[in-house]
Each structure stands twice: as C-alpha cells, then as structure tokens.
C-alpha cells in the first residue's frame, strides 16, 4: 500500500486550458468526473501504462479531459468515442484505449456506436458516467433521466407517456455475447467508491490482458443541474439513482476468456488484389499527350440510361487518368434499378488538387440519351464540350456557345456485335477529341475496370472505332 495519496503522475501538473487559473479542473464543486478521473489516473500510474494509454474524450462536460490526462488524447464527435477507440485500438493493439463518455453521449446520440462496439467485442475499456441529465448544455433530459425527474426539457418531471423509460445500458449490453465485463458502480460513500476503484482497475486489466470489451457504468452526482449541494447530491444518488439503476456485475467472463493474441489486423495489398481480381502489377504510365489547354481541369458529367455503362465509362476515365498521373474523382449517382432507370456520374480529371467531387458546372457533358442531353446541356460552361450519341438522340443541341461532337456510338457498337460497348466507343471519341489521354493510357487501365478478361479485346476495338470516327471526320 502506498504510504501517501498524492495527485497522480498521469495528470498534468498545469492544465493549459485557458488563461487564469491553471491548476484546477473546470468541473463544478462536487462533480463526479474529477473523482473518476483520479481513479483512472491512479490506475494508469500503478499499472505503469501511462505512456501507452490513449483516452478518447466525448462531447459533454468531460470534453476537456485531454487538458488533464497526461496521455495520448483524442476528442471524438458526439457519441462516436467507441468507433474512434475501435480504430485506434486496431491500428495500435499494444496501446490501452479508453473511451470516456457521459450518458447523453453514450446512451443517446452514441447509442448505436456503443452497442456495435460492444457487440464486436472490441478490446477497449469504456467508462460510462451516468448522472441522469445533460450537464454541459444546462440540464436537459437524457435517456437515463429518472421517471418524474425535473429537467429543463421535462419541467413537470419525466413522464413515461411522453418521454419513455430510463435506459439501462448495462442490462442492455449484457445481453450481447461479446462483452467480457460489465459492471455498474456508484460514486457515493467510501465503500461504493472503493468498488468504483476496483472496477476501473479490472476494466483496464482486462484490456491489458487482451480479454476484450469492458464497460463500467459509474453513477455520478451532478449537483449543479440537480440543484443540490454536493452532499445532498451524493445522497440523491443513493436514494434514487441506484433504485433505477441497480449496482452490480452484469456480466463477467474475465476468468473464462482466454487472452486473445494482440495482432495487427493488416490486409495485404496483394491478398486484396487477388480477392478482388485486380492485376498484380500496377503499371505506371505517364501520358505523352500534349494537354489541350481548355481541358486542363476537366469537369465531366456523364449521363444516360442505366445499363448503358455510364458509371463504368466514368470509372474507366478516372482510372486511366489516375494511372496517367492526373488527380481524379468519380462520383456516381443512380436510381435503385440495375437497368432502365437513369444514371449519371461526375468525374474530375485535373492536374491540380480537386476540392469537391461534385460537378455542378461541367466543362464536358456526355449524353447517351435524350433526357440527359435536355437536362444537362444548359449546365455546360461556355466553350465546353457536349458529346452525345446520335444513334439515340436525333435532336440537335440548342446551345451555340459550346463545342458539339455527335457520334453514332450505339450504331458503331452494334456493328461490332454488342450494343453494350457503346460506352467504350464514346471513350475513344472522347480521348481522340480532347487529347486528355492517349489510347495506350486507356488500354493499360482496362483490366482495372473490366472484370471479364475475355471482353477486353472487344472493348479495345470499340475504343479504336470511336477514335477513328473522330479522327476521320476532322
């Protein structure tokens, strides 16, 4: 037993939060957070794991935990601490990852986050501080607010008809198979506080031993929002909170679980390529084509019927351009139908960095049916290009301040024996007209977006036909 109880080394000596007083926390007098902070910090000291511990602060009163704990710290979006903890733990399995959350954060907006993290059995430690109210925002009702409890949003008291029943998180999570240890404790008298201390240490030890998911729910007083003195608030936890949220161990497999070996979950690039049928050798190809100045930052909208290969055409362009050294983006937009609906995609091909994948003012529109031409030709930047399939669109474009290129793509594809390669005829026409890519760049990219290898020669032929059509008509 230590011969002295002193401020833990896992706390900063000075809290660099703001100007003024830097050696006290921002918590209200009598707040439970400070006590739980102390118990966690003490355990980190005693276990010698401060250097490898990472604490995720939530949104709520404890949002500033990172000003106090001298560890790795990250502050997560509201309710998302378990997801952030999952990511960190998987990348750094040797670290000790702590998700520290309040009841508004964990049980309301983050309800599904904690449920899924627990269900996956992530090897993390969650400290869930339950004070039955939203503290930071000024005392609104939380999922854990007691029946009849007055808050700013339940001024007549929580009424089950309107607001439902208090959520018991430990009981809910204990029904899942994966969690290893779930206990509810309370920061009240000395006896209960020593139980909190034990639970904190056990939940951390489980993670160190690679046993899996541990959660400790800590019933805690909020004197400010309950409008009580700190001493009254502690009594209120004893008299009311514990009745609704009984203390105890709800799940404990600590002694039955064999430690899982901590292993980095890394997917090998080659293994993934094999699974996804992507060629192993990624040929880097640098385009020798002189870029046409007006197409330097190309913003495309490609549109047509679903089933015409609209999305694939955009994907192929982006893939080829990426391999040729451009920055690219590809954003598909389509209905739920596999065939017959309308589809379009936004593609950026640029030598500069791309801010948004969204294309609202295209420099190039490729229309493979009439509705698409009617809908999108008005959006084209003056001086831009409208490329359309004259086999299906017999109307002439109305714009006279843009370049227009018509090609009977579907007819050419039909002559080659398959109307479904009209998209590659368009591809050929596009690269021949704009010179943004040369033929070889597209040929190199074909295996990356055409899954069935036996179709590659036909696609090549379609590209050549499309190019020839443009070159011969110039």
């Amino acid at each position: 037993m230590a011969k002295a109880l002193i401020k833990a080394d896992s706390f900063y000596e000075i809290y660099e939060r703001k100007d003024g007083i830097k050696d006290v926390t921002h918590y209200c007098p009598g707040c439970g957070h400070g006590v739980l902070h102390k118990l966690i910090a003490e355990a980190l000291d005693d276990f010698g794991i401060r250097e490898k511990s990472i604490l995720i602060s939530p949104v709520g009163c404890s949002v500033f935990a990172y000003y106090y704990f001298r560890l790795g710290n990250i502050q997560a979006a509201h309710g998302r601490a378990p997801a952030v903890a999952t990511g960190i733990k998987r990348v750094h399995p040797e670290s000790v990852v702590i998700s520290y959350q309040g009841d508004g954060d964990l049980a309301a907006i983050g309800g599904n986050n904690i449920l899924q993290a627990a269900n996956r059995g992530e090897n993390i430690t969650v400290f869930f501080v339950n004070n039955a109210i939203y503290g930071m925002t000024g005392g609104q009702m939380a999922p854990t607010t007691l029946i009849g409890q007055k808050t700013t949003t339940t001024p007549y008291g929580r009424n089950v008809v309107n607001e439902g029943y208090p959520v018991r998180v430990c009981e809910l999570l204990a029904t899942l198979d994966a969690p290893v240890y779930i206990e509810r404790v309370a920061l009240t008298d000395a006896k209960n506080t020593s139980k909190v201390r034990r639970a904190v240490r056990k939940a951390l030890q489980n993670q160190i031993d690679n046993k899996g998911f541990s959660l400790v729910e800590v019933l805690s007083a909020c004197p400010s929002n309950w409008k009580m003195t700190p001493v009254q608030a502690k009594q209120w936890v004893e008299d009311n909170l514990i009745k609704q949220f009984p203390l105890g161990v709800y799940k404990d497999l600590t002694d039955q679980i064999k430690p899982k070996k901590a292993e980095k979950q890394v997917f090998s690039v080659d293994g993934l390529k094999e699974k996804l049928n992507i060629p192993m050798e990624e040929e880097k190809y640098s385009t020798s084509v002189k870029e046409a100045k007006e197409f330097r930052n190309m913003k495309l909208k490609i549109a047509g019927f679903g089933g015409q290969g609209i999305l694939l055409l955009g994907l192929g362009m982006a893939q080829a351009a990426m391999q040729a050294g451009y920055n690219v983006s590809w954003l598909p937009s389509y209905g739920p139908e596999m065939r017959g609906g309308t589809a379009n995609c936004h593609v950026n091909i640029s030598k500069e960095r791309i801010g948004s994948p969204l294309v609202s003012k295209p420099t190039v529109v490729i229309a493979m049916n009439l509705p698409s031409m009617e809908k999108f030709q008005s959006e084209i930047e003056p001086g831009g290009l409208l490329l359309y399939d004259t086999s299906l669109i017999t109307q002439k474009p109305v714009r006279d301040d843009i370049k227009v290129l018509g090609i009977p793509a579907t007819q050419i594809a039909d002559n080659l024996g398959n109307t479904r390669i009209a998209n590659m005829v368009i591809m050929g026409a596009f690269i021949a007209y704009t010179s943004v890519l040369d033929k070889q760049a597209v040929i190199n990219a074909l295996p990356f977006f055409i899954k069935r290898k036996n179709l590659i020669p036909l696609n090549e032929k379609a590209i050549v036909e499309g190019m020839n059509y443009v070159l011969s008509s110039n």
Partner: protein
Amino acid sequence: MAEGLKKARVVIREDECKGCGLCIAICPEGVLFEQKHLNRMGYHPAGYRGEGCTGCGFCFYQCPEPGAITVYKKGYVEEEVA
C-alpha cells in the same frame, strides 16, 4: 534510512479547493472543517484541524480535484515528498 511519519497527516491545497464539502462529510474522525475565509476562487476551503487524521484516505477519494488533497500515511518518509 530516514524515519517515517509518526502520525498520518492530510494536506489541503486551499487554492485548489472548491468548497464542495464532500471531504468534510466523509471524514470518519471529523477532523476536516469548512474555513471562514474565502480562497482565490471565492470558495470557503476545507481545512484540517491539525490532529486526529488516521490516513484512511476517504477524503482523497471523495475530492474531485486531482491535486487539492494529499494524504500522508503513518510511516511515510518525508524525504520522498521533494
């Protein structure tokens, strides 16, 4: 080797105390009390009567401020403080 403390002792950093009174309420020996004066934050800080601390540590684990209370138990070697 230096001789350890003959009696347990509690030290309260008045400037870090928010006057919540939880330490006073929990102390089994009743040796903590609310002081009359105000500290820099405007709270009446807790104080130690100077006698009677048994080093049980209850107050340490009630106090929400990381550094406001330090408890030195019987046998603690003073030199370690520095």
